[in-house]
């Protein structure tokens, strides 16, 4: 069955769209909580980069995208994959090293890709996905496909040469690409204030001759509105846009993080800006969903993640058979 579009549109435009936005933010939140739990129980190998607190960015951005639009993602990429429509069971299964996982256990958390939903892959290298998204946009332009490519990346990527080279190529070739920076205030332990001389990272757009816009990355409505403008520009042949979505990660960079570089007060302050209650308040105020409906959506997310974990835990583990044959794609 060919995958179909997820809901596209303004999160406050209808009850369905509001439900979708809320459901996907909850799915990301509950997925990350499940990952943390599985790690805590020693059931998961490797490391994890959680995006709790950042759910509005991927959700708002992907609500402006068609299924055939493409994304590249980051090491902190679970939210992007989910918002673009990835299968939760195959995601959890990958993290658990199972055969049915997206990468058959060969990639893990940092390398989930889903060709069917236009997800060209999360990336373990900071900035690695930005030139790839630009190349996808180049292909779209050459093939006149009308698709848009979105590169999700963090503030840290913006000081990589890869970002600079890719942004410039996108600009000079007027490519249908959205450069979506999730400024979560820290590149591992380095505060953006120590890594940039700029207040708004979106100002970098000027240097490439493209529009740059800073939005409240904890407001799914604001993110969607900026995303829609950028996607429309891209699809209309008006070229790339840089969006800076200002947000915050509640959890440490990875499991080794002791949070020595920031204060508890700062973390608590950002928890007050939790994107999910903020959106619930908006939808209830707008009369789109009542409390019971919001609670039911949260429960749906919990149930979906629970089912995904349950199936994955029982699934067959990946084996080393055939690893050597998996390096190259066989010629057709």
């Amino acid at each position, binding site marked *: 069955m060919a995958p179909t579009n997820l809901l596209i549109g303004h999160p406050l435009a209808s009850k369905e769209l509001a439900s979708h936005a809320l459901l996907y933010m909850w799915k990301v939140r509950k997925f990350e909580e499940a990952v943390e739990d599985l790690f805590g129980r020693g059931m998961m190998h490797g490391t994890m980069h959680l995006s709790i607190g950042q759910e509005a960015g991927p959700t708002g951005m992907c609500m402006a995208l068609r299924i055939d639009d*493409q994304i*590249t993602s980051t090491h902190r990429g679970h939210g992007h994959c989910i918002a673009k429509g990835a299968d939760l069971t195959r995601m959890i299964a*990958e993290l658990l090293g199972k055969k049915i*996982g*997206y*990468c*058959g256990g*060969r*990639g893990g958390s940092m*390398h*989930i*890709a*889903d*060709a*069917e939903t236009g997800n*060209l*892959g999360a*990336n*373990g*290298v900071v900035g*690695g996905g*930005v*030139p*790839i*998204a*630009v*190349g*996808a*946009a*180049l*292909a*779209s332009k*050459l*093939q006149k496909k009308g698709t848009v*490519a979105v590169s999700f990346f963090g503030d840290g990527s913006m000081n990589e*040469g*890869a970002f*600079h*080279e*890719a942004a*410039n*190529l996108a600009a*000079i070739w007027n490519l249908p690409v959205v450069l979506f920076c999730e400024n979560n205030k820290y590149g591992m332990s380095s505060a953006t204030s120590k890594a940039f001389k700029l207040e708004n990272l979106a100002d970098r757009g000027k240097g490439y001759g493209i529009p740059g816009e800073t939005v409240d990355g904890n407001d799914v409505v604001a993110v969607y509105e900026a995303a829609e403008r950028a996607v429309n520009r891209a699809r209309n042949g008006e070229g790339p846009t840089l969006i800076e979505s200002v947000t915050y990660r509640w959890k440490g960079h990875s499991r080794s993080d002791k949070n020595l570089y920031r204060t508890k007060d700062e973390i608590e302050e950002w928890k007050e800006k939790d994107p999910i209650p903020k959106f619930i308040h908006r939808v209830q105020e707008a009369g789109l969903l009542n409390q019971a409906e919001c609670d039911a959506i949260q429960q749906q997310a919990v149930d979906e993640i629970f089912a995904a974990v349950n199936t994955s835990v029982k699934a067959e583990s990946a084996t080393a058979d055939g690893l050597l044959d*998996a*390096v*190259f*794609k*066989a*010629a*057709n």
Partner: protein
Amino acid sequence: MSDDRFLTMAEAVREAMTIAMEERPDVFLMGEDVGIYGGAFGVSAGMRDKFGEDRIIDTPISELGIVGAAVGAALSGMRPIVEIQFSDFTAQAMDQIANQAAKIHFMLGGALHVPMVLRAPQGSGTGAAAQHSQVLEAWFANIPGLKVVTPSTPADAKGLLLSAIDDPNPVIFLEHKLLYKMKGLEEVPTGAERIPLGVSKVVRQGKDLTIVATGIMVYKARQIADKLAADGIDVAIIDPRTISPLDIKPILASVEETGRLMVVQEGPKHAGFINEVIAQVTESSAFGSLIAPIKRLAGLDIPIPYAPQLEKAAVPQVEDIEAAAREIVKNWR
């Protein structure tokens, strides 16, 4: 075939790219100055006029960005050919080559693949010194997920490049810049015949000494073969052509026949590709056939120096190959 089919390697590479672009609309060429300038070595001369600037794409000086864009385009239904002006500059693009292109198919579970070719000139002999003269084939050969091709003749370059473009995987195609303007010793077929990747070529059969050489060293070895034969030394010359994956079988068969092995490369000796050839020979039953110690001829373990006499001293020359061949056959009877 007429005399004018003795093409140079630059002409043969251009012919292969032209055929591929005529055959399929998803192929395009991208790189620094590949358009109106025709590439730094003139390989794509005239192609922009034929195919237009949407298929012969001039880029800014952004090796990492260009290779990354090729990876993204390859993931999205295109078959890009990227020209990196000097293979030395692949260092600028290494994340996209080593961490992205090479790994995507395996690491991301096999649903995506990267059908792209990265072409780059390599090698010394032009007086361009250490940052424009390296032979880096061993770097790429040590990265699972890349295929690495080092053609030694224009005819091979054409057939191998056509196969590289067809291949659904990333292929690093390294052209020796001294061969660009030299006419080949064989005629280049006019058609679109492919030479498969991963098949070593027995350039010359011989019963006294097996010479395995890569790139321009094959050309150099061929220059002395007849002279040695006149003196009763019958050398076999084998060109792996694709150093990754490596087709070792013809090499083993030849060693079993000659009992003597000399391996020649331009790149530095330490951890070079020829050491892999030797390792595979010593692991095989052909090891038992050896009657002489294996001889390695390779670049010195130094950056390529500038002055012509220094540059020449840094890599094996025709005379070095001849002298080593004579010595091994004379000393080990």
